[in-house]
Protein backbone atom coordinates (compact mmCIF):
# COMPACT_ATOMS: atom_id res chain seq x y z
CA UNK A 1 0.00 0.00 0.00
CA UNK A 2 1.38 3.37 -1.00
CA UNK A 3 1.14 6.24 1.42
CA UNK A 4 3.05 8.61 -0.84
CA UNK A 5 6.67 9.61 -0.65
CA UNK A 6 6.51 12.83 1.36
CA UNK A 7 8.09 12.45 4.77
CA UNK A 8 8.14 16.12 5.65
CA UNK A 9 5.32 15.69 8.13
CA UNK A 10 6.72 12.68 9.91
CA UNK A 11 9.15 14.18 12.43
CA UNK A 12 8.78 12.83 15.99
CA UNK A 13 6.57 14.89 18.28
CA UNK A 14 6.97 15.63 21.95
CA UNK A 15 3.39 16.58 22.75
CA UNK A 16 0.69 15.06 24.97
CA UNK A 17 -2.96 15.64 25.71
CA UNK A 18 -3.66 16.62 29.31
CA UNK A 19 -7.26 17.75 29.21
CA UNK A 20 -10.48 16.94 27.38
CA UNK A 21 -14.01 18.33 27.43
CA UNK A 22 -17.19 17.94 25.40
CA UNK A 23 -20.89 18.73 25.28
CA UNK A 24 -23.58 16.39 24.08
CA UNK A 25 -24.18 16.58 20.34
CA UNK A 26 -27.81 17.69 20.04
CA UNK A 27 -30.17 20.32 18.75
CA UNK A 28 -29.22 22.82 21.43
CA UNK A 29 -31.93 25.36 20.58
CA UNK A 30 -31.45 27.33 23.77
CA UNK A 31 -27.66 27.42 23.76
CA UNK A 32 -25.65 29.85 21.65
CA UNK A 33 -22.42 29.06 19.86
CA UNK A 34 -20.34 30.90 22.44
CA UNK A 35 -22.04 29.15 25.35
CA UNK A 36 -21.56 25.74 23.72
CA UNK A 37 -17.86 26.40 23.23
CA UNK A 38 -17.55 27.73 26.77
CA UNK A 39 -18.84 24.46 28.22
CA UNK A 40 -16.26 22.40 26.36
CA UNK A 41 -13.46 24.85 27.17
CA UNK A 42 -14.29 24.90 30.87
CA UNK A 43 -14.56 21.11 30.98
CA UNK A 44 -11.13 20.74 29.38
CA UNK A 45 -9.53 23.33 31.69
CA UNK A 46 -11.00 21.55 34.71
CA UNK A 47 -9.89 18.16 33.40
CA UNK A 48 -6.32 19.41 32.97
CA UNK A 49 -6.40 21.31 36.24
CA UNK A 50 -5.31 24.60 34.67
CA UNK A 51 -6.87 28.07 34.54
CA UNK A 52 -5.36 29.37 31.33
CA UNK A 53 -3.72 28.35 28.09
CA UNK A 54 -1.21 30.14 25.90
CA UNK A 55 -3.12 29.72 22.66
CA UNK A 56 -6.62 28.75 21.54
CA UNK A 57 -7.32 27.18 18.12
CA UNK A 58 -10.98 27.13 17.16
CA UNK A 59 -12.18 24.52 14.68
CA UNK A 60 -15.37 25.69 13.00
CA UNK A 61 -16.97 25.53 9.60
CA UNK A 62 -20.41 27.16 9.47
CA UNK A 63 -20.54 30.06 11.95
CA UNK A 64 -19.87 32.62 9.23
CA UNK A 65 -22.81 31.49 7.14
CA UNK A 66 -25.26 30.17 9.75
CA UNK A 67 -24.61 32.52 12.69
CA UNK A 68 -23.21 35.58 10.85
CA UNK A 69 -20.28 35.27 13.19
CA UNK A 70 -16.61 34.92 12.37
CA UNK A 71 -13.60 36.12 14.39
CA UNK A 72 -14.36 33.26 16.80
CA UNK A 73 -10.81 33.19 18.14
CA UNK A 74 -11.08 36.58 19.82
CA UNK A 75 -14.73 36.04 20.68
CA UNK A 76 -14.32 32.70 22.44
CA UNK A 77 -11.08 33.66 24.18
CA UNK A 78 -12.81 36.72 25.56
CA UNK A 79 -15.99 34.89 26.49
CA UNK A 80 -14.12 32.11 28.28
CA UNK A 81 -12.19 34.52 30.49
CA UNK A 82 -9.00 34.14 28.46
CA UNK A 83 -8.98 37.70 27.09
CA UNK A 84 -5.67 38.61 25.47
CA UNK A 85 -4.63 35.07 24.63
CA UNK A 86 -3.52 34.10 21.12
CA UNK A 87 -6.61 32.74 19.36
CA UNK A 88 -7.60 32.06 15.74
CA UNK A 89 -10.03 29.91 13.77
CA UNK A 90 -8.82 26.97 11.69
CA UNK A 91 -11.10 25.97 8.84
CA UNK A 92 -10.78 22.87 6.70
CA UNK A 93 -14.46 22.10 6.15
CA UNK A 94 -15.58 19.15 8.30
CA UNK A 95 -11.90 18.51 9.11
CA UNK A 96 -11.64 21.86 10.90
CA UNK A 97 -11.58 20.21 14.33
CA UNK A 98 -8.74 17.83 13.52
CA UNK A 99 -6.88 20.66 11.83
CA UNK A 100 -7.28 22.85 14.92
CA UNK A 101 -5.78 20.11 17.07
CA UNK A 102 -2.90 19.84 14.63
CA UNK A 103 -2.20 23.60 14.94
CA UNK A 104 -2.23 23.25 18.72
CA UNK A 105 0.25 20.38 18.44
CA UNK A 106 2.52 22.36 16.10
CA UNK A 107 2.39 25.42 18.36
CA UNK A 108 3.50 23.37 21.37
CA UNK A 109 6.07 21.45 19.35
CA UNK A 110 7.57 24.76 18.19
CA UNK A 111 8.38 25.66 21.76
CA UNK A 112 6.65 29.01 21.32
CA UNK A 113 3.43 28.03 23.08
CA UNK A 114 3.38 26.24 26.41
CA UNK A 115 -0.23 25.10 26.77
CA UNK A 116 -2.45 25.10 23.70
CA UNK A 117 -6.13 24.31 23.44
CA UNK A 118 -8.12 23.25 20.41
CA UNK A 119 -11.86 23.71 20.66
CA UNK A 120 -14.15 22.46 17.93
CA UNK A 121 -17.56 24.05 17.90
CA UNK A 122 -20.44 23.92 15.48
CA UNK A 123 -23.86 25.52 15.81
CA UNK A 124 -25.93 24.18 12.95
CA UNK A 125 -29.39 24.94 14.33
CA UNK A 126 -29.06 28.73 14.16
CA UNK A 127 -30.64 28.33 10.74
CA UNK A 128 -32.79 25.48 9.52
CA UNK A 129 -34.03 24.06 6.26
CA UNK A 130 -32.58 24.93 2.90
CA UNK A 131 -30.24 27.63 4.30
CA UNK A 132 -28.61 25.03 6.51
CA UNK A 133 -28.35 22.58 3.61
CA UNK A 134 -26.65 25.28 1.57
CA UNK A 135 -24.12 26.06 4.29
CA UNK A 136 -22.95 22.44 4.16
CA UNK A 137 -22.16 22.81 0.47
CA UNK A 138 -19.49 25.44 1.22
CA UNK A 139 -16.94 22.63 1.50
CA UNK A 140 -17.50 21.70 -2.16
CA UNK A 141 -16.42 23.53 -5.27
CA UNK A 142 -18.94 26.38 -5.52
CA UNK A 143 -18.41 26.94 -9.23
CA UNK A 144 -18.42 23.33 -10.40
CA UNK A 145 -20.27 21.30 -7.76
CA UNK A 146 -22.61 23.38 -5.57
CA UNK A 147 -23.95 25.37 -8.52
CA UNK A 148 -25.45 22.15 -9.86
CA UNK A 149 -27.57 21.68 -6.74
CA UNK A 150 -25.36 18.96 -5.33
CA UNK A 151 -25.63 18.26 -1.61
CA UNK A 152 -23.30 16.44 0.75
CA UNK A 153 -25.73 13.53 0.76
CA UNK A 154 -25.77 13.44 -3.05
CA UNK A 155 -21.97 13.26 -3.15
CA UNK A 156 -22.07 10.39 -0.69
CA UNK A 157 -24.71 8.72 -2.86
CA UNK A 158 -22.67 9.11 -6.07
CA UNK A 159 -19.73 7.41 -4.38
CA UNK A 160 -21.89 4.71 -2.79
CA UNK A 161 -23.65 3.76 -5.99
CA UNK A 162 -20.40 3.52 -7.92
CA UNK A 163 -18.82 1.50 -5.12
CA UNK A 164 -21.75 -0.94 -5.18
CA UNK A 165 -21.44 -1.17 -8.96
CA UNK A 166 -17.67 -1.74 -9.07
CA UNK A 167 -17.49 -4.17 -6.19
CA UNK A 168 -20.79 -5.95 -6.64
CA UNK A 169 -22.16 -5.24 -3.18
CA UNK A 170 -25.67 -4.42 -2.02
CA UNK A 171 -27.21 -2.03 0.45
CA UNK A 172 -27.39 -4.69 3.17
CA UNK A 173 -23.62 -5.09 2.98
CA UNK A 174 -23.21 -1.63 4.51
CA UNK A 175 -25.65 -2.20 7.37
CA UNK A 176 -23.00 -3.34 9.82
CA UNK A 177 -21.29 0.06 9.89
CA UNK A 178 -24.49 1.77 10.96
CA UNK A 179 -25.59 -0.97 13.36
CA UNK A 180 -22.16 -0.99 15.05
CA UNK A 181 -22.14 2.78 15.51
CA UNK A 182 -25.60 2.89 17.02
CA UNK A 183 -24.88 -0.02 19.32
CA UNK A 184 -21.74 1.69 20.60
CA UNK A 185 -23.53 5.00 21.20
CA UNK A 186 -25.78 3.40 23.81
CA UNK A 187 -22.96 3.79 26.30
CA UNK A 188 -22.02 7.39 25.43
CA UNK A 189 -23.86 10.06 27.45
CA UNK A 190 -22.66 12.71 24.95
CA UNK A 191 -24.21 10.95 21.95
CA UNK A 192 -27.12 12.41 19.98
CA UNK A 193 -28.87 9.04 19.53
CA UNK A 194 -28.33 6.40 22.21
CA UNK A 195 -30.42 3.66 20.71
CA UNK A 196 -29.25 0.48 18.97
CA UNK A 197 -30.80 -0.23 15.59
CA UNK A 198 -31.36 -3.50 13.78
CA UNK A 199 -30.34 -4.43 10.26
CA UNK A 200 -34.03 -4.28 9.35
CA UNK A 201 -34.35 -0.74 10.66
CA UNK A 202 -31.37 0.19 8.51
CA UNK A 203 -32.76 -1.48 5.40
CA UNK A 204 -36.17 0.13 5.77
CA UNK A 205 -34.94 3.65 6.45
CA UNK A 206 -36.24 6.38 4.12
CA UNK A 207 -34.02 7.48 1.25
CA UNK A 208 -32.06 10.69 1.58
CA UNK A 209 -30.38 10.55 -1.84
CA UNK A 210 -30.58 7.14 -3.42
CA UNK A 211 -28.96 4.77 -2.50
CA UNK A 212 -28.06 6.73 0.67
CA UNK A 213 -30.72 6.35 3.34
CA UNK A 214 -31.24 7.99 6.71
CA UNK A 215 -29.02 5.48 8.48
CA UNK A 216 -26.27 5.64 5.87
CA UNK A 217 -25.86 9.31 6.65
CA UNK A 218 -25.02 11.08 9.89
CA UNK A 219 -27.41 13.44 11.69
CA UNK A 220 -26.19 17.02 12.04
CA UNK A 221 -26.16 18.44 15.55
CA UNK A 222 -24.73 21.29 17.60
CA UNK A 223 -21.72 20.48 19.72
CA UNK A 224 -18.37 21.49 21.11
CA UNK A 225 -15.33 19.55 22.23
CA UNK A 226 -11.90 20.62 23.43
CA UNK A 227 -8.46 19.21 24.10
CA UNK A 228 -5.42 20.76 25.81
CA UNK A 229 -1.88 19.82 24.82
CA UNK A 230 1.59 20.54 26.22
CA UNK A 231 5.07 19.04 26.13
CA UNK A 232 5.09 15.42 27.23
CA UNK A 233 7.62 15.98 30.01
CA UNK A 234 5.45 18.65 31.55
CA UNK A 235 2.32 16.57 30.97
CA UNK A 236 3.68 13.80 33.18
CA UNK A 237 4.01 16.29 36.04
CA UNK A 238 0.58 17.80 35.56
CA UNK A 239 -1.87 14.95 35.20
CA UNK A 240 -1.96 11.27 36.21
CA UNK A 241 -2.78 9.96 32.74
CA UNK A 242 -1.43 12.03 29.86
CA UNK A 243 -1.93 10.61 26.40
CA UNK A 244 0.92 11.08 23.95
CA UNK A 245 0.33 12.50 20.47
CA UNK A 246 2.54 10.01 18.68
CA UNK A 247 1.73 11.43 15.26
CA UNK A 248 -0.17 14.24 13.61
CA UNK A 249 -0.60 14.58 9.85
CA UNK A 250 -2.77 16.57 7.50
CA UNK A 251 -3.06 16.04 3.76
CA UNK A 252 -5.31 17.29 0.99
CA UNK A 253 -6.82 16.12 -2.27
CA UNK A 254 -8.89 17.90 -4.88
CA UNK A 255 -11.99 19.07 -2.98
CA UNK A 256 -14.20 18.29 -5.98
CA UNK A 257 -14.77 14.57 -6.40
CA UNK A 258 -14.79 14.94 -10.20
CA UNK A 259 -11.24 16.32 -10.10
CA UNK A 260 -9.81 13.14 -8.57
CA UNK A 261 -8.13 10.51 -10.65
CA UNK A 262 -10.24 7.83 -8.94
CA UNK A 263 -13.26 9.02 -6.97
CA UNK A 264 -13.29 5.77 -5.01
CA UNK A 265 -9.78 6.32 -3.69
CA UNK A 266 -9.34 8.63 -0.70
CA UNK A 267 -5.86 9.89 -1.51
CA UNK A 268 -5.74 12.46 1.30
CA UNK A 269 -6.78 9.89 3.91
CA UNK A 270 -4.16 7.51 2.57
CA UNK A 271 -1.45 10.17 2.75
CA UNK A 272 -2.42 11.38 6.22
CA UNK A 273 -2.75 7.90 7.71
CA UNK A 274 0.49 6.78 6.06
CA UNK A 275 2.45 9.74 7.39
CA UNK A 276 0.95 9.18 10.82
CA UNK A 277 1.94 5.49 10.87
CA UNK A 278 5.46 6.40 9.84
CA UNK A 279 5.79 9.06 12.50
CA UNK A 280 4.35 6.81 15.21
CA UNK A 281 6.47 3.89 14.11
CA UNK A 282 3.50 1.55 13.88
CA UNK A 283 1.29 0.04 11.23
CA UNK A 284 -2.46 -0.40 11.12
CA UNK A 285 -2.13 -3.80 12.77
CA UNK A 286 -0.91 -2.24 16.01
CA UNK A 287 -3.87 0.11 16.34
CA UNK A 288 -6.38 -0.88 19.01
CA UNK A 289 -9.13 1.45 17.85
CA UNK A 290 -9.93 3.89 15.07
CA UNK A 291 -12.31 6.83 15.18
CA UNK A 292 -13.00 7.56 11.55
CA UNK A 293 -15.22 10.01 9.72
CA UNK A 294 -18.35 7.92 9.17
CA UNK A 295 -20.44 10.66 7.58
CA UNK A 296 -21.74 8.03 5.13
CA UNK A 297 -21.36 4.26 5.30
CA UNK A 298 -19.52 4.20 1.98
CA UNK A 299 -17.00 6.63 3.46
CA UNK A 300 -16.30 4.09 6.20
CA UNK A 301 -15.46 1.46 3.61
CA UNK A 302 -13.26 3.88 1.67
CA UNK A 303 -11.40 5.01 4.81
CA UNK A 304 -10.76 1.44 5.95
CA UNK A 305 -9.22 0.85 2.54
CA UNK A 306 -7.21 4.08 2.52
CA UNK A 307 -5.86 3.51 6.03
CA UNK A 308 -4.65 -0.02 5.44
CA UNK A 309 -7.35 -2.19 7.04
CA UNK A 310 -8.65 -3.64 3.80
CA UNK A 311 -7.55 -3.92 0.18
CA UNK A 312 -9.17 -1.68 -2.46
CA UNK A 313 -12.78 -2.75 -2.80
CA UNK A 314 -12.66 -4.79 0.39
CA UNK A 315 -13.60 -2.23 3.03
CA UNK A 316 -17.25 -3.22 3.04
CA UNK A 317 -16.36 -6.72 4.25
CA UNK A 318 -15.49 -5.33 7.68
CA UNK A 319 -19.09 -4.26 8.12
CA UNK A 320 -20.09 -7.87 8.46
CA UNK A 321 -17.16 -9.89 9.76
CA UNK A 322 -16.98 -8.63 13.34
CA UNK A 323 -13.69 -6.79 12.90
CA UNK A 324 -15.08 -3.38 13.81
CA UNK A 325 -16.86 -4.40 17.00
CA UNK A 326 -15.57 -3.41 20.43
CA UNK A 327 -13.83 -6.80 20.77
CA UNK A 328 -12.86 -7.03 17.12
CA UNK A 329 -9.64 -6.54 15.20
CA UNK A 330 -10.11 -2.77 14.74
CA UNK A 331 -12.99 -1.27 16.73
CA UNK A 332 -14.41 1.83 15.04
CA UNK A 333 -16.98 4.49 16.01
CA UNK A 334 -16.54 3.30 19.57
CA UNK A 335 -18.59 6.18 21.00
CA UNK A 336 -21.13 6.09 18.19
CA UNK A 337 -19.21 7.88 15.48
CA UNK A 338 -20.78 10.66 13.45
CA UNK A 339 -23.74 8.39 12.84
CA UNK A 340 -24.93 8.09 16.41
CA UNK A 341 -22.82 10.41 18.56
CA UNK A 342 -23.90 12.92 15.91
CA UNK A 343 -22.16 14.94 13.22
CA UNK A 344 -21.06 18.21 14.76
CA UNK A 345 -19.48 19.45 11.53
CA UNK A 346 -16.17 21.21 12.13
CA UNK A 347 -16.12 20.03 15.75
CA UNK A 348 -15.95 16.38 14.73
CA UNK A 349 -12.19 16.00 14.73
CA UNK A 350 -11.97 17.20 18.32
CA UNK A 351 -14.75 14.85 19.45
CA UNK A 352 -12.83 11.98 17.89
CA UNK A 353 -9.69 12.82 19.85
CA UNK A 354 -11.62 13.28 23.09
CA UNK A 355 -13.04 9.80 22.55
CA UNK A 356 -9.68 8.21 21.77
CA UNK A 357 -8.27 9.81 24.93
CA UNK A 358 -11.15 8.37 26.97
CA UNK A 359 -10.38 4.96 25.53
CA UNK A 360 -6.65 5.17 26.23
CA UNK A 361 -7.25 6.46 29.76
CA UNK A 362 -9.61 3.54 30.31
CA UNK A 363 -12.46 5.89 31.22
CA UNK A 364 -14.75 5.15 28.29
CA UNK A 365 -17.26 3.35 30.52
CA UNK A 366 -19.64 1.17 28.56
CA UNK A 367 -17.87 2.26 25.35
CA UNK A 368 -14.54 0.93 26.59
CA UNK A 369 -12.41 -1.15 24.23
CA UNK A 370 -10.37 -3.75 26.15
CA UNK A 371 -6.98 -2.39 27.28
CA UNK A 372 -6.02 -0.25 24.27
CA UNK A 373 -2.51 1.13 23.83
CA UNK A 374 -2.74 2.86 20.43
CA UNK A 375 -5.65 4.71 18.91
CA UNK A 376 -6.08 6.76 15.76
CA UNK A 377 -8.51 9.50 14.75
CA UNK A 378 -9.15 10.14 11.07
CA UNK A 379 -11.11 13.31 10.29
CA UNK A 380 -12.24 14.23 6.77
CA UNK A 381 -13.23 17.55 5.23
CA UNK A 382 -15.78 17.54 2.44
CA UNK A 383 -15.80 14.23 0.57
CA UNK A 384 -12.18 13.66 1.55
CA UNK A 385 -10.56 16.86 0.22
CA UNK A 386 -8.82 17.20 3.57
CA UNK A 387 -7.77 14.40 5.91
CA UNK A 388 -6.26 14.75 9.36
CA UNK A 389 -4.80 11.76 11.17
CA UNK A 390 -3.68 11.68 14.79
CA UNK A 391 -2.17 8.62 16.44
CA UNK A 392 -2.39 8.64 20.23
CA UNK A 393 -0.49 6.41 22.63
CA UNK A 394 -1.19 5.58 26.24
CA UNK A 395 1.75 6.56 28.41
CA UNK A 396 2.58 4.00 31.09
Amino acid at each position, binding site marked *: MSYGMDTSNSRPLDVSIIGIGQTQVAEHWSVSLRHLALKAIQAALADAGVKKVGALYVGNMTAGTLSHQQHLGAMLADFAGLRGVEAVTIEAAEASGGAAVRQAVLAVQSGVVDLAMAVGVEKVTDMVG*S*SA*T*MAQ*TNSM*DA*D*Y*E*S*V*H*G*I*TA*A*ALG*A*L*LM*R*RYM*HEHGVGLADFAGFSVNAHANAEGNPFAMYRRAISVDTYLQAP*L*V*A*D*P*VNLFDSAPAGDGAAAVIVCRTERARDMVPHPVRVAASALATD*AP*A*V*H*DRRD*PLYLAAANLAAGRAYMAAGIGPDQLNLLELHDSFTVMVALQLEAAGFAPRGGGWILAGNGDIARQGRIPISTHGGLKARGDAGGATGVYQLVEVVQQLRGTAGRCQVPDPHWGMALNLGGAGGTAVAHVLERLV
Partner: protein
Amino acid sequence: MELTRHWRLHNQRYSLVGEQCDRCGARLFPPRDVCPECAEPAQELFTFSGRGQVYSYSTVYSAPEGYQEYAPYSVALVQLEEGPMVTAQLTDLGDDKPEIGMPVEMVTRRLRADGDQGVIVYGYKFRKHVKDII
Protein backbone atom coordinates in the same frame (compact mmCIF):
# COMPACT_ATOMS: atom_id res chain seq x y z
CA MET B 1 -25.87 40.22 -6.30
CA GLU B 2 -23.33 37.92 -7.82
CA LEU B 3 -23.59 38.48 -11.53
CA THR B 4 -19.89 38.60 -12.23
CA ARG B 5 -19.11 35.29 -10.63
CA HIS B 6 -21.43 33.55 -13.06
CA TRP B 7 -20.45 35.74 -16.01
CA ARG B 8 -16.82 34.74 -15.55
CA LEU B 9 -17.76 31.10 -16.06
CA HIS B 10 -19.74 31.70 -19.24
CA ASN B 11 -17.45 29.72 -21.55
CA GLN B 12 -17.38 26.80 -19.17
CA ARG B 13 -21.09 26.77 -18.42
CA TYR B 14 -22.30 27.19 -22.01
CA SER B 15 -19.59 25.49 -24.04
CA LEU B 16 -17.52 23.23 -21.79
CA VAL B 17 -14.34 25.16 -22.61
CA GLY B 18 -11.48 23.56 -20.72
CA GLU B 19 -7.76 23.34 -21.22
CA GLN B 20 -5.10 21.06 -22.63
CA CYS B 21 -1.66 20.58 -21.13
CA ASP B 22 1.15 21.54 -23.53
CA ARG B 23 3.42 18.98 -22.04
CA CYS B 24 1.53 15.79 -21.26
CA GLY B 25 -1.54 16.40 -23.40
CA ALA B 26 -3.96 15.94 -20.50
CA ARG B 27 -7.32 17.50 -21.19
CA LEU B 28 -8.71 19.39 -18.26
CA PHE B 29 -12.17 20.33 -17.22
CA PRO B 30 -12.80 22.39 -15.18
CA PRO B 31 -9.91 24.50 -16.49
CA ARG B 32 -7.19 24.95 -13.90
CA ASP B 33 -4.14 26.58 -15.54
CA VAL B 34 -1.73 24.21 -13.82
CA CYS B 35 -1.82 20.60 -15.00
CA PRO B 36 -2.57 18.29 -12.06
CA GLU B 37 -0.83 15.45 -13.88
CA CYS B 38 2.53 17.10 -14.44
CA ALA B 39 2.29 20.47 -12.61
CA GLU B 40 3.14 22.39 -15.79
CA PRO B 41 1.17 25.37 -17.09
CA ALA B 42 -1.86 24.25 -19.09
CA GLN B 43 -3.55 27.24 -20.62
CA GLU B 44 -4.28 26.18 -24.17
CA LEU B 45 -8.04 26.20 -24.53
CA PHE B 46 -9.81 23.00 -25.46
CA THR B 47 -13.54 22.70 -26.10
CA PHE B 48 -15.04 19.42 -25.07
CA SER B 49 -17.52 17.57 -27.26
CA GLY B 50 -20.07 17.32 -24.47
CA ARG B 51 -20.44 13.57 -24.93
CA GLY B 52 -19.77 11.11 -22.21
CA GLN B 53 -21.29 8.49 -20.00
CA VAL B 54 -22.75 8.30 -16.53
CA TYR B 55 -20.13 7.27 -13.96
CA SER B 56 -22.65 7.43 -11.12
CA TYR B 57 -25.97 9.10 -10.35
CA SER B 58 -28.36 9.94 -7.55
CA THR B 59 -31.43 12.01 -6.74
CA VAL B 60 -31.62 15.11 -4.57
CA TYR B 61 -34.84 15.31 -2.54
CA SER B 62 -33.80 17.84 0.08
CA ALA B 63 -32.38 20.71 -1.95
CA PRO B 64 -30.29 23.72 -0.97
CA GLU B 65 -31.64 27.27 -1.12
CA GLY B 66 -32.24 28.24 -4.75
CA TYR B 67 -32.86 24.67 -5.93
CA GLN B 68 -35.96 23.69 -3.98
CA GLU B 69 -38.36 24.39 -6.82
CA TYR B 70 -36.57 21.81 -8.97
CA ALA B 71 -36.49 18.98 -6.36
CA PRO B 72 -36.42 16.06 -6.73
CA TYR B 73 -33.78 16.16 -9.45
CA SER B 74 -31.16 13.75 -10.80
CA VAL B 75 -27.47 14.46 -10.40
CA ALA B 76 -24.54 12.58 -11.82
CA LEU B 77 -20.84 12.29 -12.28
CA VAL B 78 -20.36 12.21 -16.02
CA GLN B 79 -17.15 10.94 -17.57
CA LEU B 80 -16.52 12.96 -20.73
CA GLU B 81 -15.25 11.04 -23.74
CA GLU B 82 -12.04 13.10 -23.66
CA GLY B 83 -11.28 11.94 -20.12
CA PRO B 84 -12.33 14.40 -17.40
CA MET B 85 -15.28 13.89 -15.14
CA VAL B 86 -17.88 16.58 -14.41
CA THR B 87 -20.59 16.97 -11.82
CA ALA B 88 -23.95 17.95 -13.29
CA GLN B 89 -27.65 17.32 -13.33
CA LEU B 90 -29.31 14.82 -15.64
CA THR B 91 -32.26 16.26 -17.51
CA ASP B 92 -34.99 15.35 -20.02
CA LEU B 93 -35.08 11.83 -18.62
CA GLY B 94 -38.79 11.30 -19.20
CA ASP B 95 -39.58 7.78 -18.13
CA ASP B 96 -36.00 6.60 -18.43
CA LYS B 97 -34.16 5.66 -15.27
CA PRO B 98 -30.51 6.71 -15.34
CA GLU B 99 -27.94 3.96 -15.22
CA ILE B 100 -24.20 3.67 -14.89
CA GLY B 101 -22.64 3.66 -18.34
CA MET B 102 -25.58 5.41 -20.00
CA PRO B 103 -24.34 7.61 -22.89
CA VAL B 104 -25.18 11.28 -22.37
CA GLU B 105 -24.69 14.61 -24.11
CA MET B 106 -24.47 18.13 -22.84
CA VAL B 107 -27.38 20.56 -23.15
CA THR B 108 -27.88 24.08 -21.79
CA ARG B 109 -30.52 24.55 -19.12
CA ARG B 110 -31.39 26.82 -16.25
CA LEU B 111 -29.33 25.86 -13.19
CA ARG B 112 -30.89 28.12 -10.59
CA ALA B 113 -32.64 31.39 -9.91
CA ASP B 114 -30.45 33.35 -7.56
CA GLY B 115 -32.60 34.17 -4.53
CA ASP B 116 -34.56 37.33 -4.19
CA GLN B 117 -32.16 39.23 -6.39
CA GLY B 118 -33.20 37.19 -9.35
CA VAL B 119 -30.00 36.35 -11.16
CA ILE B 120 -30.85 33.34 -13.26
CA VAL B 121 -27.91 31.02 -13.88
CA TYR B 122 -27.75 28.85 -17.00
CA GLY B 123 -25.28 26.12 -17.71
CA TYR B 124 -24.67 22.54 -18.73
CA LYS B 125 -26.81 19.58 -17.84
CA PHE B 126 -26.69 16.17 -19.51
CA ARG B 127 -29.39 14.20 -21.27
CA LYS B 128 -29.49 10.68 -22.60
CA HIS B 129 -27.65 10.58 -25.92
CA VAL B 130 -29.63 9.03 -28.73
CA LYS B 131 -27.38 7.63 -31.46
CA ASP B 132 -26.92 10.00 -34.38
CA ILE B 133 -29.04 9.28 -37.38
CA ILE B 134 -26.77 9.15 -40.40
